[in-house]
């Protein structure tokens, strides 16, 4: 059997395969680079340097508007990511932080539907979250609760006495 002469030289074929392989990597890579650069540029218009932009992205902030809000509330990407994981929005997180709460404390108080100012007042009376929940349930303000508690009353007891017109 005689060998048929191919239309393409072997080396040329190898070169083409190689070119396609490199192209398969380079083309998407170049596209991704272009898109990323465009995004970095758009973030740069809001004052983010390329490194900062990548830092925010690394911590899961792909939305520029959200990142701007967190930055305006004076949060670094790492800290902002922790707060956001606990479902705080930037403005709220800022309030809690300014009221002196760390993330764990804020998350705990907020879980029981305390606003930061209420939480601050209850904390100032020296009560735990559990105590505060029990007293608030009976309609006591932090100061009232403190007076009744110092007089040795439980929340239920205090509520009954108060309903009957009593005082601590």
């Amino acid at each position, binding site marked *: 059997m005689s060998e048929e002469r191919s239309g393409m030289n072997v080396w040329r074929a190898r070169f083409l395969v190689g070119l396609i392989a490199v192209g398969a990597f380079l083309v998407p890579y170049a596209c991704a680079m272009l898109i990323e650069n465009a995004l970095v540029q758009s973030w740069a218009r809001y004052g983010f340097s390329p490194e900062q932009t990548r830092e925010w992205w690394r911590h899961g902030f792909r939305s520029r508007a959200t990142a701007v809000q967190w930055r305006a509330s004076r949060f670094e990407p790492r800290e902002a990511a922790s707060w956001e994981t606990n479902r705080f929005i930037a*403005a*709220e997180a800022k309030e809690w932080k300014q009221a002196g709460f760390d993330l764990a404390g804020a998350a705990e108080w*907020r*879980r*029981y*539907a*305390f*606003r930061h100012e209420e939480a601050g007042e209850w904390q100032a009376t020296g009560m735990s979250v559990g105590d505060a*929940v029990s007293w*608030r*349930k*009976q*309609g006591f303000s932090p100061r009232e609760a403190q007076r009744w508690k110092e007089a040795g009353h439980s929340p*239920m007891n205090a*509520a*009954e006495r108060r*309903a009957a017109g009593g005082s601590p």
Partner: protein
Amino acid sequence: MTTGLPYQNGSPHCRMRTMQIRRPVLIAFACVLLITLYHSGPHAGQPDPPLTPEEQQRWAESGFVPEDALIWKRVGIGPAEAREWVMAGIQFAEWANQWKGEGFGPADAAKWVRIANVYTAGEFRKRGFSPADATAWMETGVGSALRAEEFREIGLGPKEAGRWWKLKFYPQEVPPWRDAGFGPEETLEWKYGKKEYHNDGLGYSRTVFSVEWAREWRGGGFTSDEAKWATRIGVKFPEAIQWKRAGFGLSEAVRWKDSGFAPDQAARLRAEGLNPVEAEERRDAATATSEDEITSLHADISLREDGSVFVTESFEVLNRPGGAIRGCFERVLPAHTTLWYRSSSSRDASPSYSHVAAFIDESPTPADVVKDSHGDRILCIGGKGSQLAEGTHAVTISYVTEDRLITLRDHEELFFDVIGRPLRIPVRRASATIRLPRGADVVFADGFAGLQERKDFTARVHQVDGSDVVEYAVWRPLTLKPEMVFQVSVGFTKGFVRTSLWKKARQFDRQTGRLLTSLLILVVGFCGTISYYSVAWYRVGRDPKAGMVLPEFEPPAGASPAFIRYILKRRRVDDVSIAATLVHLAQRGAIRIEEREGVYQLRKAGSAEGCASYERDVLATVFGDIDRFIMGVGRARSILLGVRWKVKRALKAEYQSYFVSNARHLWPGLLVSGATLLGSLIVLNLRTGRKAETFLTMYSGFQITLFAFLGLLFYFLLKAPTREGRTLLDGIAGYRDALAANYRKEEGGQSDPGMSPFLARHLPYAMALGIECDRLAFRWASTQWFTGRSGGFSVRDFIASIRRRVPRKRASA
């Protein structure tokens, strides 16, 4: 329907016209582009001319290097002045230019430059403030010269103005409050009503009180909170003063007032040691009444984890002879209600009701439901037509209701109207129990009981089996006025109620007046209609496949020129159709066409044998009793228009033997469309009002347009040629190809000069088919039916003569 002919588009003339329009637009666009590029390019600004050696010398003496000197020179500042600006602390040319532009000299600017930016400084100076004054105003927070001037005009100094400004009062607001003796903090306290909060956490006040109101109430010795509350609940100032003079605080006065006592009565009863409720009960006991009443009402409300609420209402009803209860005992379950947030905001809800059960004296009893015009359900306990026996009865109703929750960012609220609508029957005692899902902690227990904004109830929270339970007890009889309500509102921690997506969708549907259901019907109906039409089109509307197109040298049998054009032009008869018919008649020897000085006239020349019947009608219409018809004169145009209608009618009948409309297959689709339209509109349960009416108009308009478009689309798509029609179309296509090739050859000068007999014979068909034959010479020799200009018969001129009007003088000549 498609004709299957590839040559329906414009002639070369059309293409020429398009090019003629397009070219100037392109040129204009290119010009604009070039001008823009020129102006935005390097030509835009001329570079600064370099400094001469003398200039360089002068600038160097003032301490400027040539690069800086060039900039100073560009802004029009010389070396000496530039030096003054630098000494004044303004080191850059552009900056100095700004100060200069605001009217500052270097000396002046030196005083202001450390206080404010150039524009603020300019504004302050323009309004007559010295640098020291401006500093004082800015230090108190009033950074705008305009505001400072306004405050100054109302006689306030920087310090006092700063206090007002810090609390966001504009200068115009200040004088009346200040003149009435209110300071900024007091004004803030008295001027604005209760703040309302949105989900973004920002508060704002909807209510604004006047200074006269504030002065009056403050003068009466009331606090701003008391005054605002009194105003909200409708207590006027003179009345409040009366109560105050009688020795009652405002809240106590309101209790006595709600119990129906005047100040002097209340004072006497209080002196006897009675509270308002005791006094009210004593009064009522002394009055013999024949009214029916609800001796007690208790609502047991259990919130389930899926967000639904199980309610059991227990009434003790006293039915007296001749009382308000005539027939069954009724309870209204409202279709729409307002859920009030604790923060005074609200949202509208459309609760659902299911699993309704009723008992009278512990025996199950039917509860018939009647819907009123508002969509409210009126439960008739005992059944329609029944009569509640006289005496005291225990009536119990239970049901499951949804859409009672308000979900906020950090907690949820359950709001329930135990008595939300006026009851016709007074209620002596009312209470409620709210049971929360296990684990949910009460954040607050609030609500309303009594008249507007009254909280005449006590609430107690305790735990039962790990669940928080709130016990409400209204401490006043709800007997006096029909506006008395009993509404409970309990806040609780999040995460214990999980409403399914399906329930959320149903809630949304109810809230939007069944819009989702309506849209669903619309989508299903639309899909059904489109599916039906598609099937109908597939079965009867598709055109038979085109056959092989072979060059034909004769027109399809029986097809007149006008009929061929009628098919090609999608059932239109135009001037070309009439011209082709007239030429066809002339070829058959029925008429002669004569032309003299551009005026055409037709002469009867013989019988129209071998012509189509409508062509004979054309002859009869054009000539009537005479044998000459001058085109473009008198009624000629209207006669030819009449001819067009007759031809159209005749061709329509002929067309129907080749093409079918399949209109009967359209009707079921139209019926489905109509049913969908009706169904989707009937289910809507919108509230009345202008917004709802506008929406309904737009929504129904949209649907009508949608289905009309669909019907119209398929009206055209369902039309199809019959097998004979398809053969006719293929024949026309082949004939057209052959004819076009021959005429093209003639125009290109490839055949003998003059008109060949073949082309002359097929001239009416060539006209009807839109083949370009304007520039051909139709000599008398080849067109025996025409006499006229030496150049021969011109198709274009003849077609134009149908539309053209000729002056009578020229015609008679």
